[in-house]
Protein backbone atom coordinates (compact mmCIF):
# COMPACT_ATOMS: atom_id res chain seq x y z
CA UNK A 1 0.00 0.00 0.00
CA UNK A 2 1.29 3.44 -0.88
CA UNK A 3 0.90 5.98 1.90
CA UNK A 4 0.89 9.76 1.61
CA UNK A 5 4.35 10.05 3.15
CA UNK A 6 5.80 7.49 0.77
CA UNK A 7 5.15 10.22 -1.81
CA UNK A 8 5.78 13.35 0.29
CA UNK A 9 8.92 11.93 1.84
CA UNK A 10 11.01 10.71 3.38
CA UNK A 11 12.47 13.90 4.74
CA UNK A 12 16.08 12.91 4.47
CA UNK A 13 19.71 13.84 4.18
CA UNK A 14 20.60 13.50 0.50
CA UNK A 15 21.50 12.49 -2.05
CA UNK A 16 19.67 9.20 -2.66
CA UNK A 17 16.62 7.68 -1.01
CA UNK A 18 17.90 4.16 -1.68
CA UNK A 19 21.66 4.67 -1.27
CA UNK A 20 21.53 7.13 1.62
CA UNK A 21 18.16 7.04 3.47
CA UNK A 22 17.68 3.28 2.98
CA UNK A 23 21.32 2.58 3.88
CA UNK A 24 20.89 4.57 7.09
CA UNK A 25 17.77 2.58 7.97
CA UNK A 26 19.61 -0.69 7.43
CA UNK A 27 22.26 0.44 9.90
CA UNK A 28 19.59 1.64 12.33
CA UNK A 29 17.74 -1.68 12.24
CA UNK A 30 20.98 -3.66 12.51
CA UNK A 31 21.85 -1.68 15.66
CA UNK A 32 18.44 -2.50 17.15
CA UNK A 33 18.79 -6.18 16.27
CA UNK A 34 22.20 -6.25 17.95
CA UNK A 35 20.56 -4.73 21.02
CA UNK A 36 22.34 -1.38 20.99
CA UNK A 37 25.49 0.28 19.83
CA UNK A 38 28.15 -2.20 18.77
CA UNK A 39 31.83 -1.84 19.60
CA UNK A 40 32.89 -3.16 16.23
CA UNK A 41 31.28 -3.44 12.80
CA UNK A 42 32.22 -5.06 9.52
CA UNK A 43 30.01 -3.97 6.66
CA UNK A 44 30.14 -5.82 3.35
CA UNK A 45 28.59 -3.96 0.42
CA UNK A 46 27.13 -5.73 -2.58
CA UNK A 47 26.26 -4.61 -6.11
CA UNK A 48 25.31 -1.00 -6.61
CA UNK A 49 25.97 -0.23 -2.94
CA UNK A 50 29.58 -1.20 -3.54
CA UNK A 51 29.80 0.39 -6.99
CA UNK A 52 28.28 3.85 -6.48
CA UNK A 53 28.06 3.95 -2.70
CA UNK A 54 31.01 6.28 -2.30
CA UNK A 55 29.37 9.20 -4.08
CA UNK A 56 26.06 8.61 -2.33
CA UNK A 57 27.46 8.67 1.17
CA UNK A 58 26.30 5.08 1.65
CA UNK A 59 29.09 4.34 4.14
CA UNK A 60 28.36 7.45 6.18
CA UNK A 61 24.68 6.58 6.12
CA UNK A 62 25.15 2.99 7.36
CA UNK A 63 27.56 4.07 10.10
CA UNK A 64 25.13 6.85 11.06
CA UNK A 65 22.37 4.27 11.37
CA UNK A 66 24.62 2.10 13.54
CA UNK A 67 25.11 5.14 15.78
CA UNK A 68 21.33 5.48 16.08
CA UNK A 69 20.86 8.38 13.66
CA UNK A 70 17.72 8.43 11.54
CA UNK A 71 17.66 9.31 7.80
CA UNK A 72 16.83 12.98 8.50
CA UNK A 73 19.60 13.49 11.05
CA UNK A 74 22.15 16.06 9.80
CA UNK A 75 24.82 14.27 11.85
CA UNK A 76 24.89 11.61 9.09
CA UNK A 77 27.35 13.89 7.32
CA UNK A 78 29.90 13.53 10.12
CA UNK A 79 29.04 9.98 11.15
CA UNK A 80 32.50 8.56 10.44
CA UNK A 81 34.04 11.16 12.75
CA UNK A 82 31.30 10.53 15.34
CA UNK A 83 32.03 6.80 15.20
CA UNK A 84 35.63 7.48 16.18
CA UNK A 85 34.48 9.67 19.08
CA UNK A 86 31.99 7.14 20.42
CA UNK A 87 34.32 4.17 20.12
CA UNK A 88 32.70 2.34 17.24
CA UNK A 89 35.39 0.59 15.22
CA UNK A 90 34.31 -0.17 11.70
CA UNK A 91 35.59 -1.67 8.50
CA UNK A 92 34.05 -1.87 5.04
CA UNK A 93 34.46 -4.65 2.54
CA UNK A 94 32.82 -5.86 -0.64
CA UNK A 95 30.86 -9.07 -1.01
CA UNK A 96 29.24 -10.84 -3.91
CA UNK A 97 25.97 -12.02 -2.39
CA UNK A 98 24.92 -13.64 -5.66
CA UNK A 99 22.73 -12.72 -8.61
CA UNK A 100 19.58 -13.31 -6.57
CA UNK A 101 20.52 -10.63 -4.04
CA UNK A 102 19.04 -7.17 -4.53
CA UNK A 103 21.72 -4.85 -6.00
CA UNK A 104 21.46 -2.53 -3.01
CA UNK A 105 22.35 -5.11 -0.39
CA UNK A 106 24.65 -5.16 2.61
CA UNK A 107 25.79 -7.78 5.09
CA UNK A 108 26.52 -6.26 8.46
CA UNK A 109 28.50 -8.02 11.20
CA UNK A 110 28.24 -6.44 14.63
CA UNK A 111 30.13 -7.24 17.80
CA UNK A 112 28.63 -6.05 21.08
CA UNK A 113 30.04 -7.46 24.30
CA UNK A 114 30.17 -11.22 23.91
CA UNK A 115 27.63 -11.25 21.10
CA UNK A 116 28.20 -11.35 17.38
CA UNK A 117 25.21 -10.62 15.16
CA UNK A 118 25.08 -10.87 11.40
CA UNK A 119 22.36 -9.09 9.45
CA UNK A 120 21.74 -9.09 5.73
CA UNK A 121 19.31 -6.69 4.18
CA UNK A 122 18.63 -4.48 1.20
CA UNK A 123 17.37 -1.04 0.31
CA UNK A 124 14.44 -1.53 -2.04
CA UNK A 125 13.81 2.08 -3.12
CA UNK A 126 12.28 5.26 -1.74
CA UNK A 127 14.13 4.74 1.55
CA UNK A 128 12.32 1.49 2.29
CA UNK A 129 14.31 -1.57 3.36
CA UNK A 130 13.94 -5.31 3.81
CA UNK A 131 15.85 -7.37 6.39
CA UNK A 132 16.52 -10.79 4.86
CA UNK A 133 18.80 -12.67 7.22
CA UNK A 134 19.68 -12.62 10.89
CA UNK A 135 22.59 -14.90 11.78
CA UNK A 136 21.75 -18.17 10.03
CA UNK A 137 18.02 -17.53 9.77
CA UNK A 138 16.18 -16.24 6.72
CA UNK A 139 13.74 -13.50 7.78
CA UNK A 140 11.64 -10.92 6.00
CA UNK A 141 10.51 -7.68 7.55
CA UNK A 142 10.72 -4.00 6.71
CA UNK A 143 11.02 -2.15 10.00
CA UNK A 144 8.07 0.02 9.01
CA UNK A 145 6.03 -1.72 11.73
CA UNK A 146 7.19 -2.37 15.30
CA UNK A 147 8.79 -5.81 15.26
CA UNK A 148 9.55 -8.38 17.94
CA UNK A 149 12.35 -10.85 17.24
CA UNK A 150 12.50 -13.94 19.42
CA UNK A 151 15.19 -16.57 19.25
CA UNK A 152 13.79 -19.65 20.97
CA UNK A 153 13.99 -23.40 21.44
CA UNK A 154 12.06 -25.07 18.66
CA UNK A 155 9.46 -26.67 20.97
CA UNK A 156 5.67 -26.94 20.65
CA UNK A 157 3.50 -24.14 22.02
CA UNK A 158 5.86 -21.18 21.64
CA UNK A 159 3.84 -19.55 18.88
CA UNK A 160 0.62 -19.85 20.89
CA UNK A 161 2.31 -18.34 23.95
CA UNK A 162 3.74 -15.43 22.00
CA UNK A 163 0.47 -14.62 20.25
CA UNK A 164 -1.27 -14.96 23.64
CA UNK A 165 1.09 -12.42 25.20
CA UNK A 166 0.54 -10.05 22.25
CA UNK A 167 -3.22 -10.36 22.69
CA UNK A 168 -2.94 -9.65 26.45
CA UNK A 169 -1.11 -6.43 25.60
CA UNK A 170 -3.80 -5.51 23.08
CA UNK A 171 -1.40 -5.85 20.17
CA UNK A 172 -2.66 -6.85 16.76
CA UNK A 173 -0.22 -9.15 14.95
CA UNK A 174 0.30 -7.99 11.36
CA UNK A 175 2.71 -10.72 10.24
CA UNK A 176 4.48 -13.60 11.93
CA UNK A 177 7.26 -15.68 10.52
CA UNK A 178 9.06 -18.67 11.98
CA UNK A 179 12.30 -20.17 10.74
CA UNK A 180 14.39 -22.87 12.31
CA UNK A 181 17.87 -24.17 11.74
CA UNK A 182 16.94 -27.83 12.28
CA UNK A 183 14.12 -29.83 13.87
CA UNK A 184 14.24 -29.52 17.65
CA UNK A 185 16.95 -26.90 17.42
CA UNK A 186 16.60 -23.15 17.47
CA UNK A 187 13.82 -21.17 15.86
CA UNK A 188 13.75 -17.50 15.04
CA UNK A 189 10.40 -15.78 15.14
CA UNK A 190 9.74 -12.32 13.76
CA UNK A 191 6.43 -10.72 14.64
CA UNK A 192 5.32 -7.41 13.12
CA UNK A 193 2.57 -5.71 15.11
CA UNK A 194 0.32 -2.67 14.81
CA UNK A 195 0.85 -0.21 17.63
CA UNK A 196 3.58 0.49 20.17
CA UNK A 197 5.24 -2.50 21.82
CA UNK A 198 5.07 -2.13 25.63
CA UNK A 199 8.20 -2.87 27.68
CA UNK A 200 6.25 -5.55 29.60
CA UNK A 201 5.99 -7.70 26.49
CA UNK A 202 9.74 -7.69 26.08
CA UNK A 203 10.37 -8.62 29.72
CA UNK A 204 7.62 -11.28 29.84
CA UNK A 205 8.93 -12.91 26.67
CA UNK A 206 12.45 -12.77 28.09
CA UNK A 207 11.35 -14.77 31.16
CA UNK A 208 10.03 -17.69 29.13
CA UNK A 209 12.24 -20.77 29.59
CA UNK A 210 12.32 -21.39 25.83
CA UNK A 211 13.35 -17.84 24.92
CA UNK A 212 17.05 -17.27 24.33
CA UNK A 213 17.05 -13.76 23.03
CA UNK A 214 14.29 -11.20 22.64
CA UNK A 215 14.73 -7.99 20.70
CA UNK A 216 12.24 -5.25 20.02
CA UNK A 217 12.50 -2.92 17.04
CA UNK A 218 10.68 0.36 17.34
CA UNK A 219 9.14 1.81 14.22
CA UNK A 220 11.58 3.51 11.85
CA UNK A 221 9.24 6.50 11.39
Amino acid at each position, binding site marked *: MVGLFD*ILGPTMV*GPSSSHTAGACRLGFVARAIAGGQPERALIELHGSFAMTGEGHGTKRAIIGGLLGFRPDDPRLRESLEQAAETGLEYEFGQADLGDEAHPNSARIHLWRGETHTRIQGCSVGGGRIRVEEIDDFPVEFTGSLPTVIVQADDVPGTIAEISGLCAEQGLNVATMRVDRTSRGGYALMTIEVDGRIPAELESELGEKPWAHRVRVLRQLG
Partner: protein
Amino acid sequence: MFRSIEEWIEDAADAGVTLPEAVLRREARNTDVDPDAIRARVARALDVMREAIAEGVSSAERSPTGMTGGRARTLLANGPRLMGEELTSMLARAIATLEVNARMGLIVAAPTAGAAGVVPGVLMTLAESRGWSSEQLVDGMLVGGGVGAVIAVRASIAGAGGGCQAETGSAAAMAAAAVTHLEGGSPEQVSQAIALTLQGMLGLICDPVAGLVEMPCAYRNASAAVHAVAAAEMALAGLDFPIPPDEVIDVMGQVGRTMDVRFRETALGGLAATPTGQRIAEAAGMPELVELQRRGRTQGERSARLGPS
Protein backbone atom coordinates in the same frame (compact mmCIF):
# COMPACT_ATOMS: atom_id res chain seq x y z
CA MET B 1 -4.51 5.88 -1.30
CA PHE B 2 -6.54 6.02 -4.54
CA ARG B 3 -5.90 3.62 -7.41
CA SER B 4 -6.95 6.03 -10.14
CA ILE B 5 -7.49 9.75 -10.66
CA GLU B 6 -11.04 8.90 -11.66
CA GLU B 7 -11.71 7.06 -8.38
CA TRP B 8 -10.25 9.98 -6.41
CA ILE B 9 -12.43 12.57 -8.16
CA GLU B 10 -15.55 10.41 -7.74
CA ASP B 11 -14.77 9.77 -4.10
CA ALA B 12 -14.41 13.51 -3.46
CA ALA B 13 -17.62 14.30 -5.36
CA ASP B 14 -19.59 11.59 -3.52
CA ALA B 15 -18.43 12.87 -0.15
CA GLY B 16 -18.91 16.49 -1.20
CA VAL B 17 -15.32 17.40 -0.29
CA THR B 18 -12.33 18.92 -2.09
CA LEU B 19 -9.56 16.82 -3.65
CA PRO B 20 -7.09 17.50 -0.80
CA GLU B 21 -9.77 16.71 1.79
CA ALA B 22 -10.43 13.36 0.09
CA VAL B 23 -6.69 12.52 0.29
CA LEU B 24 -6.59 13.57 3.94
CA ARG B 25 -9.61 11.43 4.85
CA ARG B 26 -8.25 8.39 3.03
CA GLU B 27 -4.80 8.72 4.64
CA ALA B 28 -6.35 9.22 8.09
CA ARG B 29 -8.50 6.12 7.62
CA ASN B 30 -5.63 3.96 6.32
CA THR B 31 -3.16 4.95 9.02
CA ASP B 32 -5.45 5.68 11.96
CA VAL B 33 -3.68 9.03 12.38
CA ASP B 34 -5.59 12.21 13.18
CA PRO B 35 -6.09 14.45 10.10
CA ASP B 36 -4.64 17.45 11.96
CA ALA B 37 -1.49 15.45 12.73
CA ILE B 38 -1.21 14.55 9.04
CA ARG B 39 -1.54 18.21 8.05
CA ALA B 40 1.09 19.15 10.64
CA ARG B 41 3.49 16.58 9.21
CA VAL B 42 2.94 17.94 5.69
CA ALA B 43 3.56 21.45 7.04
CA ARG B 44 6.89 20.28 8.48
CA ALA B 45 7.84 18.85 5.09
CA LEU B 46 7.09 22.28 3.58
CA ASP B 47 9.40 23.87 6.16
CA VAL B 48 12.22 21.52 5.17
CA MET B 49 11.61 22.39 1.50
CA ARG B 50 11.82 26.13 2.29
CA GLU B 51 15.03 25.69 4.25
CA ALA B 52 16.65 23.64 1.49
CA ILE B 53 15.83 26.35 -1.05
CA ALA B 54 17.16 29.11 1.22
CA GLU B 55 20.41 27.22 1.72
CA GLY B 56 20.75 26.23 -1.92
CA VAL B 57 20.28 29.67 -3.49
CA SER B 58 22.72 31.35 -1.11
CA SER B 59 25.57 28.85 -1.05
CA ALA B 60 28.12 28.01 -3.69
CA GLU B 61 29.38 24.94 -1.83
CA ARG B 62 30.18 22.11 -4.22
CA SER B 63 29.11 18.51 -3.88
CA PRO B 64 31.84 15.96 -3.02
CA THR B 65 32.29 15.19 -6.74
CA GLY B 66 32.26 18.87 -7.69
CA MET B 67 29.61 18.17 -10.33
CA THR B 68 27.02 20.48 -8.74
CA GLY B 69 26.92 23.43 -6.38
CA GLY B 70 26.62 27.18 -6.96
CA ARG B 71 24.60 27.04 -10.17
CA ALA B 72 21.36 28.26 -8.56
CA ARG B 73 23.23 31.30 -7.26
CA THR B 74 24.84 31.96 -10.63
CA LEU B 75 21.47 31.82 -12.37
CA LEU B 76 19.98 34.36 -9.98
CA ALA B 77 23.04 36.60 -10.27
CA ASN B 78 23.09 36.60 -14.08
CA GLY B 79 19.38 36.27 -14.87
CA PRO B 80 16.68 36.84 -15.78
CA ARG B 81 17.09 37.69 -19.43
CA LEU B 82 14.18 35.94 -21.12
CA MET B 83 11.85 34.27 -18.66
CA GLY B 84 11.06 36.97 -16.13
CA GLU B 85 11.80 37.06 -12.40
CA GLU B 86 9.31 34.43 -11.36
CA LEU B 87 10.17 31.58 -13.70
CA THR B 88 13.88 32.25 -13.37
CA SER B 89 13.54 32.07 -9.63
CA MET B 90 11.63 28.80 -10.04
CA LEU B 91 14.48 27.32 -12.09
CA ALA B 92 17.00 28.42 -9.48
CA ARG B 93 15.00 26.96 -6.60
CA ALA B 94 14.59 23.58 -8.29
CA ILE B 95 18.34 23.48 -8.99
CA ALA B 96 19.12 24.73 -5.47
CA THR B 97 17.22 21.83 -3.87
CA LEU B 98 19.13 19.27 -5.93
CA GLU B 99 22.41 21.00 -5.10
CA VAL B 100 21.63 20.78 -1.40
CA ASN B 101 20.66 17.13 -1.87
CA ALA B 102 23.95 16.35 -3.62
CA ARG B 103 26.00 17.64 -0.69
CA MET B 104 24.09 15.59 1.90
CA GLY B 105 21.76 18.39 2.89
CA LEU B 106 18.24 17.86 4.22
CA ILE B 107 15.52 17.59 1.58
CA VAL B 108 12.08 16.04 1.14
CA ALA B 109 11.91 13.27 -1.44
CA ALA B 110 8.83 14.28 -3.47
CA PRO B 111 8.32 11.68 -4.74
CA THR B 112 12.05 10.82 -4.80
CA ALA B 113 15.30 12.50 -3.83
CA GLY B 114 16.25 12.75 -7.51
CA ALA B 115 13.08 14.73 -8.24
CA ALA B 116 13.04 16.66 -4.97
CA GLY B 117 13.37 20.10 -6.59
CA VAL B 118 10.23 20.23 -8.72
CA VAL B 119 7.39 20.49 -6.18
CA PRO B 120 9.12 23.00 -3.87
CA GLY B 121 10.43 25.02 -6.84
CA VAL B 122 6.93 25.42 -8.24
CA LEU B 123 4.94 25.81 -5.01
CA MET B 124 7.28 28.13 -3.11
CA THR B 125 7.73 30.44 -6.09
CA LEU B 126 4.09 30.74 -7.12
CA ALA B 127 2.99 31.07 -3.47
CA GLU B 128 4.73 34.46 -3.37
CA SER B 129 2.91 36.00 -6.34
CA ARG B 130 -0.40 34.21 -5.76
CA GLY B 131 -0.45 34.87 -2.03
CA TRP B 132 -1.13 31.25 -1.00
CA SER B 133 -1.18 30.72 2.75
CA SER B 134 0.67 27.93 4.53
CA GLU B 135 -2.62 26.06 4.92
CA GLN B 136 -3.28 26.35 1.19
CA LEU B 137 0.20 25.01 0.50
CA VAL B 138 -0.60 22.01 2.68
CA ASP B 139 -3.70 21.48 0.50
CA GLY B 140 -1.49 21.70 -2.58
CA MET B 141 0.86 19.08 -1.15
CA LEU B 142 -2.07 16.79 -0.39
CA VAL B 143 -3.20 17.09 -4.02
CA GLY B 144 0.36 16.35 -5.17
CA GLY B 145 0.53 13.38 -2.80
CA GLY B 146 -2.71 12.00 -4.24
CA VAL B 147 -1.31 12.23 -7.77
CA GLY B 148 2.01 10.62 -6.84
CA ALA B 149 0.27 7.76 -5.06
CA VAL B 150 -1.82 6.93 -8.14
CA ILE B 151 1.29 6.97 -10.32
CA ALA B 152 3.18 4.78 -7.83
CA VAL B 153 0.40 2.17 -7.98
CA ARG B 154 -0.33 2.26 -11.74
CA ALA B 155 3.17 2.95 -13.09
CA SER B 156 6.31 3.78 -11.08
CA ILE B 157 7.88 6.71 -9.30
CA ALA B 158 11.39 5.22 -9.36
CA GLY B 159 13.97 5.85 -12.06
CA ALA B 160 14.95 2.18 -11.80
CA GLY B 161 11.37 1.26 -12.56
CA GLY B 162 10.51 3.73 -15.29
CA GLY B 163 13.28 6.19 -16.14
CA CYS B 164 13.23 9.91 -15.42
CA GLN B 165 9.62 10.23 -16.60
CA ALA B 166 8.78 8.28 -13.43
CA GLU B 167 10.73 10.70 -11.23
CA THR B 168 10.69 14.27 -12.58
CA GLY B 169 7.61 13.41 -14.69
CA SER B 170 5.69 12.33 -11.60
CA ALA B 171 6.95 15.31 -9.63
CA ALA B 172 5.85 17.67 -12.41
CA ALA B 173 2.38 16.09 -12.53
CA MET B 174 2.14 16.48 -8.75
CA ALA B 175 3.14 20.14 -8.96
CA ALA B 176 0.83 20.89 -11.90
CA ALA B 177 -2.14 19.33 -10.13
CA ALA B 178 -1.36 21.23 -6.92
CA VAL B 179 -1.11 24.57 -8.73
CA THR B 180 -4.27 23.98 -10.74
CA HIS B 181 -6.20 23.20 -7.58
CA LEU B 182 -4.78 26.18 -5.67
CA GLU B 183 -5.69 28.51 -8.55
CA GLY B 184 -9.30 27.43 -8.22
CA GLY B 185 -9.31 24.86 -11.00
CA SER B 186 -12.06 22.24 -10.92
CA PRO B 187 -11.25 18.56 -10.28
CA GLU B 188 -11.67 18.07 -14.04
CA GLN B 189 -9.07 20.77 -14.71
CA VAL B 190 -6.72 19.19 -12.16
CA SER B 191 -7.13 15.94 -14.02
CA GLN B 192 -6.37 17.65 -17.35
CA ALA B 193 -3.26 19.25 -15.83
CA ILE B 194 -1.95 15.79 -14.90
CA ALA B 195 -2.55 14.43 -18.41
CA LEU B 196 -1.08 17.54 -20.05
CA THR B 197 2.05 17.29 -17.91
CA LEU B 198 2.71 13.60 -18.40
CA GLN B 199 2.06 13.54 -22.15
CA GLY B 200 5.03 15.87 -22.51
CA MET B 201 7.38 13.80 -20.37
CA LEU B 202 6.71 10.31 -21.70
CA GLY B 203 9.85 8.40 -22.52
CA LEU B 204 12.34 10.55 -20.62
CA ILE B 205 15.27 8.34 -19.66
CA CYS B 206 17.20 8.22 -16.38
CA ASP B 207 20.93 8.37 -17.10
CA PRO B 208 22.74 9.84 -14.09
CA VAL B 209 26.39 10.64 -14.79
CA ALA B 210 28.62 8.44 -12.60
CA GLY B 211 25.41 6.95 -11.20
CA LEU B 212 24.99 9.94 -8.93
CA VAL B 213 21.92 12.07 -8.27
CA GLU B 214 23.49 15.24 -9.69
CA MET B 215 23.69 15.54 -13.46
CA PRO B 216 21.49 15.80 -15.41
CA CYS B 217 19.09 15.58 -12.44
CA ALA B 218 19.49 19.19 -11.28
CA TYR B 219 18.64 20.57 -14.74
CA ARG B 220 15.87 18.04 -15.33
CA ASN B 221 14.23 19.24 -12.11
CA ALA B 222 14.41 22.82 -13.39
CA SER B 223 12.86 22.05 -16.77
CA ALA B 224 10.20 19.79 -15.21
CA ALA B 225 9.16 22.66 -12.91
CA VAL B 226 8.57 25.03 -15.82
CA HIS B 227 6.82 22.26 -17.77
CA ALA B 228 4.44 21.74 -14.82
CA VAL B 229 3.49 25.43 -14.78
CA ALA B 230 2.88 25.35 -18.55
CA ALA B 231 0.54 22.38 -18.15
CA ALA B 232 -1.34 24.08 -15.30
CA GLU B 233 -1.67 27.27 -17.37
CA MET B 234 -3.21 25.33 -20.25
CA ALA B 235 -5.55 23.33 -17.98
CA LEU B 236 -6.73 26.47 -16.17
CA ALA B 237 -7.50 28.09 -19.53
CA GLY B 238 -9.82 25.18 -20.24
CA LEU B 239 -7.60 23.29 -22.67
CA ASP B 240 -8.23 19.58 -22.61
CA PHE B 241 -6.33 16.46 -23.59
CA PRO B 242 -8.14 13.64 -25.41
CA ILE B 243 -6.63 10.80 -23.34
CA PRO B 244 -7.66 10.71 -19.66
CA PRO B 245 -4.85 10.95 -17.06
CA ASP B 246 -5.22 7.36 -15.83
CA GLU B 247 -4.61 6.10 -19.35
CA VAL B 248 -1.63 8.44 -19.78
CA ILE B 249 -0.23 7.11 -16.50
CA ASP B 250 -0.71 3.55 -17.76
CA VAL B 251 1.26 4.44 -20.91
CA MET B 252 4.00 5.85 -18.71
CA GLY B 253 4.08 2.52 -16.89
CA GLN B 254 4.28 0.55 -20.15
CA VAL B 255 7.04 2.78 -21.52
CA GLY B 256 8.95 2.39 -18.26
CA ARG B 257 8.68 -1.38 -18.16
CA THR B 258 9.85 -1.77 -21.76
CA MET B 259 12.58 0.85 -21.48
CA ASP B 260 16.10 -0.53 -22.00
CA VAL B 261 17.71 -1.13 -18.62
CA ARG B 262 20.59 1.14 -19.61
CA PHE B 263 18.15 4.02 -19.35
CA ARG B 264 16.71 3.09 -15.99
CA GLU B 265 19.11 4.60 -13.48
CA THR B 266 21.82 2.03 -14.09
CA ALA B 267 24.19 4.72 -15.40
CA LEU B 268 25.06 2.29 -18.21
CA GLY B 269 23.54 4.33 -21.02
CA GLY B 270 22.55 7.79 -22.17
CA LEU B 271 24.53 10.77 -20.90
CA ALA B 272 26.19 8.61 -18.25
CA ALA B 273 27.86 6.37 -20.85
CA THR B 274 29.16 9.13 -23.14
CA PRO B 275 32.96 9.49 -23.37
CA THR B 276 32.75 12.54 -21.12
CA GLY B 277 30.36 10.77 -18.74
CA GLN B 278 32.86 7.93 -18.44
CA ARG B 279 35.70 10.34 -17.73
CA ILE B 280 33.65 11.95 -14.96
CA ALA B 281 32.84 8.54 -13.47
CA GLU B 282 36.51 7.61 -13.56
CA ALA B 283 37.51 10.85 -11.89
CA ALA B 284 34.84 10.22 -9.24
CA GLY B 285 36.55 6.91 -8.43
CA MET B 286 34.15 4.47 -10.08
CA PRO B 287 36.30 2.30 -12.36
CA GLU B 288 33.94 -0.67 -12.02
CA LEU B 289 31.04 1.37 -13.36
CA VAL B 290 33.11 2.55 -16.33
CA GLU B 291 34.11 -1.03 -17.04
CA LEU B 292 30.44 -2.05 -17.13
CA GLN B 293 29.62 0.92 -19.37
CA ARG B 294 32.31 -0.18 -21.82
CA ARG B 295 31.10 -3.75 -21.86
CA GLY B 296 27.66 -2.51 -22.82
CA ARG B 297 24.34 -4.17 -22.88
CA THR B 298 24.91 -7.80 -21.91
CA GLN B 299 26.30 -6.80 -18.56
CA GLY B 300 23.65 -4.13 -18.35
CA GLU B 301 20.90 -6.74 -18.34
CA ARG B 302 22.34 -8.35 -15.27
CA SER B 303 22.52 -5.00 -13.56
CA ALA B 304 18.93 -4.14 -14.40
CA ARG B 305 18.13 -3.02 -10.91
CA LEU B 306 21.36 -1.20 -10.17
CA GLY B 307 21.41 2.42 -9.32
CA PRO B 308 20.02 5.01 -6.95
CA SER B 309 16.48 6.18 -6.47
